């Protein structure tokens, strides 16, 4: 491999267009003693990369991994944490549904009681009847209590009449006022004329 070929390969290498085989050839040349000194920087870089690949996991750690592999068994699914996570969720959901169903459909045997009370249905019906009667009594008394209020209507009528009298009074006052003005006018006319004006 000559320097021209290496230069072309290096150009491709720096553009990220070389394949693994080309890179391998290039590295082999650059790390060899016959490599051209103009590629010293690349030779140093590839030297480091080759050295980096020699770094391996310590033997003690490798043995530890092997030991763990030999003693690590894959648990069956029903013994995994994931299984118990889902199983617990499903069990909780079923329990809630069961509780709801029980509370809906459970009926006490032998006693016709109302839910949440100690009364029987007959006792409740009797209470409703008594309540109705009490309300009817209150209604009657209320009707009787409104009768005196009808007297107030008379007062209302009287008030209307008084308003009419008030209007009449205002009209009389207006007439009197007009009459006074008329008499004053006549007096003025009498002063100006020789004849006495008599108003009947």
């Amino acid at each position, binding site marked *: 491999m000559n320097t021209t070929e290496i230069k072309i390969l290096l150009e491709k*290498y*720096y*553009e*990220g*267009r070389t394949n*693994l085989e080309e*890179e*391998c050839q290039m590295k082999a040349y650059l790390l060899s003693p016959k490599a051209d000194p103009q590629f*010293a*920087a*690349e030779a*140093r*870089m590839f*030297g*480091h*990369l080759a*050295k*980096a*690949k020699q*770094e*391996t*996991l*310590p033997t003690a*750690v*490798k043995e*530890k*991994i*092997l030991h*763990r*592999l*030999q003693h*690590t068994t*894959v648990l069956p699914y029903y013994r995994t944490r994931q299984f118990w996570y889902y199983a617990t969720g499903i069990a909780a959901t079923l329990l809630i549904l069961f509780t709801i169903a029980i509370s809906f459909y459970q009926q006490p045997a032998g006693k016709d009681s109302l839910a949440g009370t100690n009364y029987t249905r007959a006792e409740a019906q009797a209470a409703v009847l008594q309540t109705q009667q009490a309300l009817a009594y209150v209604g009657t008394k209320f009707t009787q209590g409104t009768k005196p209020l009808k007297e107030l209507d008379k007062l209302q009528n009287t008030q209307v009449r008084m308003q009419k009298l008030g209007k009449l009074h205002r009209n009389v006052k207006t007439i009197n006022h007009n009459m006074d003005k008329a008499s004053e006018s006549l007096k003025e006319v009498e002063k100006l004329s020789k004849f006495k004006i008599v108003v009947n």
Partner: protein
Amino acid sequence: MTQQAFIDEVLPHQDKVYRLARNYLSNADSEDVAQEVMIRLWQKRAELSGYRSVPALAMVIARNLCLDRIKAKGYQNSSLNGISEPAHHQTPASALEAKDDTALALSIISQLPEQQRIIVHLRDVEEMEYEEIAAVVKMNVNTVRVNLSRARKTIRETMIKNYNYEYHGN
């Protein structure tokens, strides 16, 4: 998959996993990650035949575990966007002082952004195909090539700069 088949086919990749983890974590943590990856693969051994590349799967698990550890521990000198300096890497200053080629190369690579560093590692150290690398870093192949190109050019420029500096200094 039998235990022997697993030992023959999967276990040899533990060194690759370890080297990848060393890009993120300290030595002890990297060993833990390598163990954890192998145990996880062993537990999934029944499904391994469904994967196109077991090494790539191992690398994906390893990278995720490393990132989880970094997040959980608030890893020293590390961040998710750019892990500045893995524990075994020297600082650029100390590398220059030592004038050691490997240390210099390590320090240059360690300063690359996380994605570029991992891509360079997977390609130039582990010699993985572009498609496998893309699966590990969750990028498309073209993006992998672009990142690889940028990383390689950065490494070359820094190395040439340092080489000239050393040459003229002597």
